[in-house]
Structure formats: C-alpha cells, structure tokens
C-alpha cells in the first residue's frame, strides 16, 4: 500500500463509499469493500499525520529562517 499515492487512496475511498452507498453489493463484498475502505481511511489519515509531522520537523529545524508559525490551527498549538 505504501506506494499508492495519497490522492489515489482518497479517490479509492470515495469510490468505495459510493459503492457502499448504492447498497447493491452482496454482504461479503460489502464487508470486503468496507474493510478496504477502513484501511484506506487509516492509510490516508496516517499519511496526513506523517506529512504534518514532517512539516513540523522541517519548520522546527529551519526555525528562524522561515516564519516560525506559518499556520496555526488552534488544536495544533496544544500538541506542541
């Protein structure tokens, strides 16, 4: 799964959601799709976490060179 891009995963997730919402899948298939969907969701979520962490590290390492807090969602500041 690691090689699949974030956007592709998100697209797949969207497709799965639509397929499930159509309600025409047999249970096992639906279950399988659902599982896949959960995995994709998790993958996407982790990918975002990872990316965010990377950005934080980048910004911390380069602090002072670049504006220190370029993007401040309220919750993030609590994490720091």
């Amino acid at each position, binding site marked *: 799964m690691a090689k699949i891009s974030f956007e592709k995963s998100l697209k797949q997730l969207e497709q799965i959601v639509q397929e499930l919402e159509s309600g025409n899948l047999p249970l096992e298939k639906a279950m399988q799709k659902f599982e896949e*969907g959960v995995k994709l969701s998790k993958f996407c979520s982790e990918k*975002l976490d990872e990316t965010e962490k990377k950005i934080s590290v*980048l910004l911390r390492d380069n602090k002072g060179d670049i504006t220190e807090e*370029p*993007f401040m969602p309220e919750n993030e500041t609590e994490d720091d």
Partner: protein
Amino acid sequence: MSQNTRKIYTVSELTSEIKTLLEESFPFVWISGEISNLSTPVSGHFYFTLKDENAQIRAVMFRGQNKKLKFIFEDGLSIIGLGRINLYEPRGNYQIIFEYLEPKGIGALQLGFEKLKKRLSEEGLFDDKYKSPLPFLPNKICIITSPTGAVIHDIIDIIHRRFYNIPIEIIPVKVQGDGAIQEIVSAFDMINTLADSKKSADVVVLARGGGSIEDLAAFNSEEVARAIFASKIPVISAIGHETDYTISDFVADLRAPTPSAAAELIVPLKNELKNRCDELFKYLIARIYNNIEKLNSILNGISNRLVDPRKNIQDFRLKIDDYTDRLIKAKYNILDKWRAQLIWMSRSLYANSPYKHTNNLNIILKQLNGNLLSSIGIYLQNMRSMTIVLASRLNDLSPIAILDRGYSITRTIPDAVVVRDPKMVKIGQDLEVMIAKGSLICRVEGKS
C-alpha cells in the same frame, strides 16, 4: 509672423546678448590706431578715442594700467595695444579696455612676438594634440621659478593649504634679464633627465610674477617655447598677471592666469578628496547593505508566501472524515437492510412452522381415532345384538317352556331318560321330575 512665434527682446536682453557676443568673440585683441579726444577725469583713468582713416572706437585705460606707461600719453599719438572689448550696458556703448599700450614706434618687440607666435603656431607647437593632461593628483610638483620673491611662497602656500603632503621640488631660475632663458631651458633639461626616474615630478609649473613686456621677454623666447614643448612632463604656465600672454602660455599644456591660480589648478583639495573617498566608502557600505537588505526582503516576501501544505491537510482530513462517516453509515445501512430482510424472512419461517401441519394432522388424527372407536363399537354392538336375538329365539324354543303351564318332565336318574312308559321304571326307583320352578327328586311308589 504671428505674435506668438515672434521673439521680442527687451533692450536689456538684446544688449546683454550683444555684450556676451562681443566680449566672448574678442577676449583679447591687439589693435593699433591714433589717440584722440583724450580726457583724464579725477579718477585717473584715461578715456580716449582710437581712430584710423575710416573708423574709430572708444577706449579706456584704467589707472592701475596707465600708471605703468613709460611714455607721454597724448592726442595724435599712434599706439599699439592689447585690450579686450567691453560693452557698457547702461549706455549701450562699446569700448576697448586696454591692458597694455606702447607707442607705435616701439612696436618692433610686439612685431617680433607676433612673428614668433605665428611661426611656432604654424609649426604646430600650440596644437591641442600635443597638450598633455595634467595629473589629477600629482605625486610631485616641480616649480620652475625664481627662488626669491612672493611667487614661490604663494605657490607653496596654496599647494600646502590644498594638499599638505604633496612633495614639491623647486628648480630656481632667473626669470628676467641676462641668463634667464638659459636657466629656464636648463631647468627643463633637468626635468627631462629626471623624467623617467622614480623621483620625477609629474607636473611642472613655470611661474613668474607680473611685469612689462620687456620683463616677460624670456617667456616670449623661442628657446623657452621649445624647451616647454620638449618637456616630458606636463607643463602649466603661470606668467605675469591675468592679462599677460606670452609665447610660453601658448606652448604650455595649460595656462594659468596667475601663479596662485596655477597652484589651485594642479593641486586638488585634499580634504575634498578625502571626503569624497570617505563618502564613497560610506556609500559603498550602505549600498551593499541595501542590496542585502533588498534581497533579504525579497527572500522574506517569497519565504512568507511559502505556505506549508498543512491547510490542504486540514481539508483532506475533513474529506477523509466525511468519507469514513459515510463509509460506516453505508455499512450499517447495509447491515440494517439485510437484517430487516432476515428478520422478515425468519418471521415468515416461524409463521409457517410445521405447527400448522401438526395442528391439522392432530385434528384429522382425532377424528380418525373417534371413527376407529365408533366403528369398533358399532361392530361389537352388531355382534352383540345378533347374539342376543339368537339367544332370545333359542329361549323361546326351550323344550321345557311347557313346564310353566304345569307340565312336568320325568327323567331317570342319572340317565336322564324321559319316562314315557311306566314299564321303563321300577318301583322304588328315584326319578327326577322337572317342574317350572325347579325339579323334584321322586321315588316310584307305584305304576299305573
């Protein structure tokens, strides 16, 4: 011509332009003529008219100059003089202001001057192409002049005032009289000898104070002119007063009106240079910092725009949440749907459980049971009634039924033979007599 395009001068304007035109066209001119209408007011200046056969011109010689005249100045005298054209605006007059005058008879010296000037000029000694530029900041200044007198001191003072530490070398010469020409020529010889050495000066000032045309003779000599021309180092001439023009002046790379002016021309103000240098250095630093600051602000501007992708990430998070929500909802919807279907089906199943069968079958079985019982009952009843009918008919046919009517039957004992004939029995023999309600045991007593 229309009113608009027509240039209309005021008198002052026109006069001013004419003055400029005249004075610039004729800065200094040699002129000859005859003196007339001479007047000498209290001021001591000479006012007169110079004329020839066809024309006349107003002329002035101020007191400072006319005091030096060594001949009697009077009407009718023919003279040669050096002067400049001047226009006196308040009156619109033009006149020539003489700096130098001599009687026409003495004009030989002047003639020689003019001749030499013309010859050297034709030879090209005055040509601009031979004129060397003066150094901007000379390393060393050589002054050829009389070691005595005010001139040398003035020059040194001015040089030192302007640039304290410029080295000066002086080649003392006689500037008039016998030997002056030789000494000056020798001085240039020395300069040329030293020209290639390290110690060499890089500009020469040939200087002398003011004097009569006779006093300046050495500087009008061909020898000096050629020496100047041959100088390997640029020469600035500073001879006499502002109005004194000599051959040397024409040959020199630059003419200074006076020795003091020469000093000013060749030596820049050290302060100015130093200030200029410092200023430039200051600018240099300011500029480079400006450049860096400018680049810094550009960099900051761009860097500030380098928005990290976290905003996108937020959007993506919302999207993922939405999808996940819908995913889970859809999942539960599917489960609900299937469960509902299953429940309905199961209910149908239970509604159609074989209880329905067993109930019916129970009823049928019960009925059959009833039938079974009743059939056997009826059967037995039939049998019993048949038996009873037969038994009743049998009863009706009982041979001993007559007994009820009083008949009796006598039988032997134990053979039970019906006694129909007395012969069949013996007296004393026991017999059984059957009667209606039982039987009697009797003994034969007699026969009949």
